């Protein structure tokens, strides 16, 4: 569905693994979140989307960014960095999804300005908790806005 | 002949002798031999012998007016006497030495 049809709520997911894309979608389904999930499978495409949004005020900006640290071309941290410098999207919440639990990566993500750091778990239940996290962030952002 | 050390006590030296030799010339050798025999036999410890080799010191010959070698010069005791030849005439040698 188009963003306009969804009432304009648009989420941007930057993830190259189709399996993980499915899991994110499944998590949101279970949580009952029927937003438009736009997927970019590499960092460069994601940045292009952000450029488009900044260029065209008629483009509705996403209300949440979920980004995997390890994506091709430009990696997740570059995407976040670009986002934070975006005039129209700079303040939206960011969930960094990563399979790395190294403190260094966590710290880097925090320095970049992500809102949440989600460690890709090896259990279904834990993965599905992502849905709750999304709902919380979108709600607070919308409320704030 | 057993060798006796020549102890030179100046007061006991009575004979001063000088023998002019010509290196290892035969007669020179004989002269040395003969003279020593007499001296040792009768003047042991009382003689002083100087040997002059005129091949070494030709000029010494002029001191004593030496013409023929070997020549024995007796400086002391008594008058200066000389004897030419190989000194094989022992009686004459003894006489010349005042013995």
């Amino acid at each position: 569905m188009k963003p306009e049809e969804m009432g304009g709520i648009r989420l941007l997911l930057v993830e190259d693994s189709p399996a993980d894309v499915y899991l994110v979608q499944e998590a949101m389904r279970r949580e009952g979140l029927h937003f438009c999930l736009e997927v970019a499978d590499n960092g460069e495409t994601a940045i292009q989307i952000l450029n488009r949004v900044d260029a065209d005020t008629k483009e509705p900006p996403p209300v949440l960014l979920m980004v995997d640290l390890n994506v091709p071309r430009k990696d997740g941290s570059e995407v976040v960095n670009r986002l934070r410098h975006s005039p129209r999207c700079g303040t939206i919440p960011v969930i960094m999804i990563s399979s790395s639990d190294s403190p260094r990566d966590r710290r880097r993500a925090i320095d970049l300005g992500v809102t949440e750091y989600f460690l890709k778990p090896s259990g279904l239940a834990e993965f599905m908790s992502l849905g709750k996290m999304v709902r919380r962030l979108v709600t607070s952002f919308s409320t704030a806005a | 002949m057993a060798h006796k050390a020549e102890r030179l006590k100046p007061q006991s030296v009575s004979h001063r002798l000088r023998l002019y030799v010509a290196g290892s010339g035969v007669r020179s050798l004989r002269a040395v031999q003969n003279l020593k025999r007499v001296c040792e036999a009768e003047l042991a410890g009382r003689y002083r012998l100087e040997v002059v080799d005129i091949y070494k010191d030709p000029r010494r010959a002029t001191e004593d007016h030496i013409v023929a070698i070997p020549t024995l010069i007796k400086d002391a005791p008594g008058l200066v006497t000389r004897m030419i030849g190989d000194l094989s005439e022992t009686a004459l040698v003894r006489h010349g030495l005042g013995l």
Partner: protein
Amino acid sequence: MSEIGPLFTGGASPGAAPSQDNLLERLLQAEETIRAIHFGEVDAVVVNGPNGPQVYTLEGADHPYRVLVEQMHEGTVTLDPSGLILYSNPQFASIMGAAATSLTGSQFAQFLLPSDSSIFAELVEGATLRGHNSGELNLLTPDHNLIPVRVSLTLQNVAGMRNISVLVSDLREQIRNAEIVKEERLSRLILEQAGEAIVVIDPEGAIIRRSESARTLGGNSMLTLPFDQVFHLVAADGPLDCSRILESARAGLRLHGWEVSVRRSDGRVWALMVSTNPLWSESRELLGCVVTLTDITERKRAEDALARQAEELTRSNGDLRQFAYSASHDLREPLRQLVVFGELIHEKFSEKLGAEGAELIQHAVDSAHRMETLVKDLLAYMQAADAPQAMRPTVDANEVMAKTLVTFETQIVETGARIEWDPLPVLGVHEVHLVQLLQNLISNALKYRSEARPYIRIRAEPAGPMWKFNVADNGIGISPDYQAQIFGVFQRLHGGGKYSGTGIGLAICQKIVQRYEGRIWVESEPGRGARFQFTLPGGLL
């Protein structure tokens, strides 16, 4: 002798005023002289020539002999049968350090020690019998020096006299020469046969000696050539020419261990180590310099190869580590997904799968789990014993044990375990390593417990420069057949999932212990518990 007989003349001294008596005297002298000459009683006459007194020898036949005797190098004396010196030549006089004429008339025995007297007497006897004899003895000079000489006796039967002429050779020089020659020969042999290339240069830099080995470096004809012409040595700071060598030699310095390279005419480059040693005479005069050139080409090549190898190893090690880390990471991603999707399938299609289908999926998911654990453990093994940042590792084992108790608190309570330890030493080991080591061992002890309440006791005792730890438990024990095996990577003795774990724990322990050059082993029998022992270096707090 003449019939007239010799006349004794004398009395008048030269220069006395001519008188009757004087004239008579001189006449008699003249007659005597003429008579003696006439009858062949003289050897020579002295004639006043224009250049002073001239001696004319009357027997020409012995003139050459006389010259020989006078001038020869050897000493000679003529002795009468009683040993009286009738004549001594200049050389003998020189040996004795006395005037020849003062020796004439002396007994030869005067110049011999008693021991040599008898030897000489024998020599004389032999010469008298056989005509010749020779031997060696010592001459005692008037100033009490002992001169070793060789004497050669010849019986002379001349004009009725049986004299002995003795040729005297001063052995001192000969002995010295012989020794010098022997030493020279030995030095020459050393130089010739030395394995090193040795070159001796004189103070002008010309090569005066060389060892055989030097020929490989400098060619076959280098003697007398200037050092620089034969060897072109290049040190790190420029050419090493012999002026530098001689300069340091004059300053009394020895060069040692200079690395130079030499390029030969065929283009080959040799790496050499140069050492120099100045040569001094007894009077502190610089005789030259010994230059030793050691071929270190091979050694340098080996050193370079080793250095390169070490570099490569370090690099590849780093690469490997990097690779292992990222590989393990990448390997775990799909495994994780496998597990999650396994669960999803199970959830969504449980009715369609049925019990059997569910079991199949479970096996798949379990395998994925296991694989993930294996990869995780493998990564842990690879990283085990990596040195952390701390420079000097040191840890108090008692503190580590206290922490471990906390770590295993839950299990201790669950199993009712008792863990005790004797006072433990300070070890020269990184804390993380000791933690890992002890935790693995205690974890195993708890895991492989027997029916009885687990009891674990840790002790340590000195073993040379190390400490030997003993972790004893009362668990199920290990058969001797497998005691070596269990330290292997992923080696397990119990399959089927009865005991959890991938079997990496002990492999990690071994790796850690080996890093500190210690050992780890186990003493155990089935049903009798296990005593794990390991050695680690002591440390200072």
